[in-house]
């Protein structure tokens, strides 16, 4: 279904070519990017603030002008004409060029930051990073780092493509509010607040860089020793933040997910989701809808959960003490708490929700056993070792494989090839945990409108998570899937008004209807009785 075969028409119809205005706007944006590129190649710009501003403004203006030409003055409605014909959105040449460029950028960013001009060992920044020094000094008082460059560009991307998304879905209030929300959280929580917080740091007081909306396990590094130490030593504020971090996991997240589904995070707050929904919007249809992809997804994403749980446990375990008279939280207390919590969750699910996870129960049990065994092993070796692995290399491996390669290089670099939510779907442990709850214990579902579905396939095509929405809708079955991020696009593109995202009671949420509304009741009764 999701093959890259060319469409029926042999060449792209001219109607889907860029207009002159769109070409000019693209050129403008590209010139803005070229300034950054030149900086990266160490071209010395005389007046850095001006050139940085010029570059960012040109990129912004390019996207805004392009958007206006594309959508302004058009009737509000679905704007997917030509998506399957355009090279950039149908895995054509431009898609590959963009994909390779993005991927290369990520590789350099993560592994060769000095190429971007990062000054090491106290040396001054040069090149691209130096270009951002003035902005960094303005916000946090210090010089820029490669992460500051990345954070700035990331935020700009969400804001300008957020504008594009807002224009595209100007008829849809849900999409509008959701987009304002991700723009707000990115600009405020992910970008400005941490920078201002850094400003507060002095020799005696120092907080780690903390994006408050980033919750473990998405920020898998949150409970590493240096961070926890610095939070604890930063007095009440630091402690408050640490407590907030723990509360987010165990209290805030479960409550919000129960009430609204995981969308409250994945498509309203999260930065990864924010980028996917704005800059990645044009690529959402590239997600793989095959059932085989769903199988792979479940194995991979849950393995990541197991991995991150073990890794974090091992890391925390490695720096806790043994002596309970010094601090109540010792190695053993910690291990036992983790094991008990997992056992409790596992037992509750098996007792109350067994029927709903029938087939997956086996896999859940496997995952659970693996973790418990590993915890036992951890205790047995009573050191910083997890079986044969030390905590630190484990952390590094996770950081490299999942944190960098998966979420960055593949997740974002390959937007134009694999779609915009590859990371969220296959890699994000946070999404998996929220999804687990969403599937079993949440009021959220996508309600199917009786018998109105015509099986057209728009919903499945544009589901960025690769959910075959139509498979449910055409059977009159509600969509209750752990991976659904609640982006609402399936509902938006449905030409027959079949899908509604809503929060309602748990009863009747999962409704396997075989015969749809429309037939005489006799027939429906008959089938329900079976």
């Amino acid at each position: 279904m999701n093959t890259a075969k060319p469409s029926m028409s042999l060449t792209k119809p001219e109607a889907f070519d860029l207009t002159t205005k769109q070409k000019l706007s693209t050129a403008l944006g590209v010139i803005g990017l070229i300034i950054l590129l030149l900086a990266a190649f160490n071209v010395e710009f005389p007046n850095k603030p001006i050139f940085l501003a010029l570059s960012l403004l040109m990129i912004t203006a390019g996207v805004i002008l392009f958007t206006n030409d594309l959508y302004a003055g058009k009737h509000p409605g679905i704007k997917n004409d030509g998506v399957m014909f355009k090279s950039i959105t149908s895995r054509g040449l431009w898609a590959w060029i963009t994909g390779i460029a993005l991927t290369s950028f990520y590789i350099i960013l993560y592994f060769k930051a000095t190429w971007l001009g990062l000054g090491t060992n106290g040396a001054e920044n040069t090149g691209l990073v130096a270009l951002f020094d003035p902005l960094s000094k303005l916000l946090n008082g210090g010089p820029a780092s490669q992460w500051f460059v990345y954070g700035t560009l990331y935020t700009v991307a969400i804001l300008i493509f957020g504008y594009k998304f807002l224009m595209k879905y100007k008829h849809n209030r849900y999409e509008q509010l959701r987009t304002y929300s991700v723009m707000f959280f990115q600009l405020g929580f992910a970008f400005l607040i941490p920078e201002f917080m850094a400003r507060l740091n002095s020799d005696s007081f120092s907080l780690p860089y903390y994006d408050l909306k980033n919750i473990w396990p998405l920020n898998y590094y949150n409970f590493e020793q240096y961070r926890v130490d610095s939070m604890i030593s930063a007095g009440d504020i630091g402690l408050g933040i640490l407590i907030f971090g723990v509360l987010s996991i165990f209290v805030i997240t479960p409550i919000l997910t129960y009430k609204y589904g995981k969308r409250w995070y994945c498509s309203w707050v999260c930065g990864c989701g924010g980028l996917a929904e704005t800059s990645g919007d044009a690529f959402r249809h590239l997600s793989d809808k095959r059932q085989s992809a769903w199988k792979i997804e479940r194995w991979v994403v849950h393995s990541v959960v197991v991995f991150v749980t073990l890794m974090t446990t091992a890391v925390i375990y490695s720096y806790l003490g043994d002596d309970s008279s010094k601090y109540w939280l010792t190695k053993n207390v910690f291990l036992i708490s983790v094991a008990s919590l997992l056992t409790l969750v596992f037992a509750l699910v098996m007792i109350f929700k067994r029927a709903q996870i029938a087939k997956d129960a086996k896999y859940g049990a496997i995952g659970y056993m693996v973790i418990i065994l590993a915890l036992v092993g951890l205790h047995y070796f009573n050191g910083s070792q997890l079986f044969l692995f030390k905590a630190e290399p484990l952390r590094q491996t996770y950081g490299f494989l999942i944190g960098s390669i998966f979420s960055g290089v593949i997740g974002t670099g390959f937007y134009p090839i694999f779609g915009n939510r590859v990371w969220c779907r296959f890699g994000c442990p946070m999404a998996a945990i929220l999804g687990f709850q969403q599937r079993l214990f949440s009021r959220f579902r996508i309600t199917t409108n009786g018998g109105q579905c015509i099986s057209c396939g728009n919903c499945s095509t544009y589901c960025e998570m690769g959910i075959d929405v139509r498979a449910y809708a055409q059977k009159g079955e509600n969509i209750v899937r752990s991976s659904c991020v609640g982006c609402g696009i399936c509902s938006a593109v449905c030409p027959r008004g079949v899908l509604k995202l809503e929060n309602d009671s748990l009863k009747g949420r999962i409704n396997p209807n075989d015969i749809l509304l429309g037939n005489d009741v006799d027939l429906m009764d008959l089938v329900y009785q079976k």
Partner: protein
Amino acid sequence: MEHIVIIGNGIAGVTAARHIRKLSDKKITIISAETDYFFSRTALMYVYMGHMKFEHTQPYENWFWKKNRINLKKAYVNKVDTDTNTLYFAEGDSLQYDKLIIATGSKPNKFGWPGQDLKGVMGMYHKQDLEQLEVFAPNNKVCQRAVIVGGGLIGIELAEMLNSRDIPVTFLVRESSFWNIVLPNGESEMLNRHIKNHHIDLRLSSNLKEIKSDKNGQVSSVIIEETGEEIPCNVVGLTAGVSPNIDFLKDSKIEINRGVKVNRFLETNIPNIYAIGDCAEQHEAIGNRRPIEAVWYTGRMMGETLAQTICGNRMAYKPGHWFNSAKFLDIEYQTYGWVFGDVGRPDYEKHFHWKHDDDTKCITIAYHKDTKEFLGITTFGIRMRHETFDRWLTEKRNVDYVINHLSEANFDPEFYSRFEDKILSTYKAQQPSLAS
């Protein structure tokens, strides 16, 4: 093992096959001359517009059929010999059946217009029509204008398709207002304006007289009956309705009229032969329904019902309350129960109409003028909940109840503006007796 053969891999035939498989172990074969795999006909437009690729219109992955032991055969059935239970194919081979289900769907109407078989004249029904359209109307250089004949649901879809590629469209509609044989006036007139807002040259009360050809046998223009005006064009879309695709049955012993004649059990005059979907014609219409129902849902429901019969639980086709939906350019349309346009409206049927100022949303509620029983609703630009209206129709609620409880039936996405209060106050204003 009993061999069930189904001619036609559309929604009707495929639904029957799926449910027969669920209920039994019978051998199942589906035959179609159109495509290898089932696809959603209703989605053809989106392929041309570039919203989807053709593969996306296929609701099941290709492995599905083998896994469910449903044999697929691509061939055209020429002839059915009901004495020997044999199908003969245009390709020369033949196939034996124990039970036969005819689900061959429709074909576009052609009313004998001069020039209707020229190159560049096409319907919009089969996948092959779409391929033709790609040849004759790939862009606005090859096709400088297209004329669409017939203002129904497929006509407006074709207009939207061509519009997406900036091909100028002239839309000839026989009626004095768009689709007013079905829609109430308020809705129909709103659509006239909406169509024109999209720069489609809508010509109401206009019939096609003839299609003229250039020297290569291709369309060069059409002439309008009423005015004699000649409109140069490169493509003519014939969308003046559809009729059952059953010519291949003419010489068989199966009773046909416009469609294949069936009783309530979807049985034909031959004991082991059945017909479902667009091609089936009821001896007597069911309620307000037409004897031939050419919509997606009814094909599906007939397939579900017939599967029961074939698997030993003989069951009549008893559709519940009527419903339907469509989309006109940017405006979605849904209907539940019966709301008639001017044509064929029973004299007891009264309407309440409300329209939003933005001219893209409106509703009409039909009720019995004496008993006030709620008969049906038509909504434009507002989504409604099927389940709620189905229940209200069964409960025979009256119009006051429905209007007072409209918010329960709303199915728009979250955070959308709601109009129930405005609708209610408009209703009250029109019914002074209720004000007190």
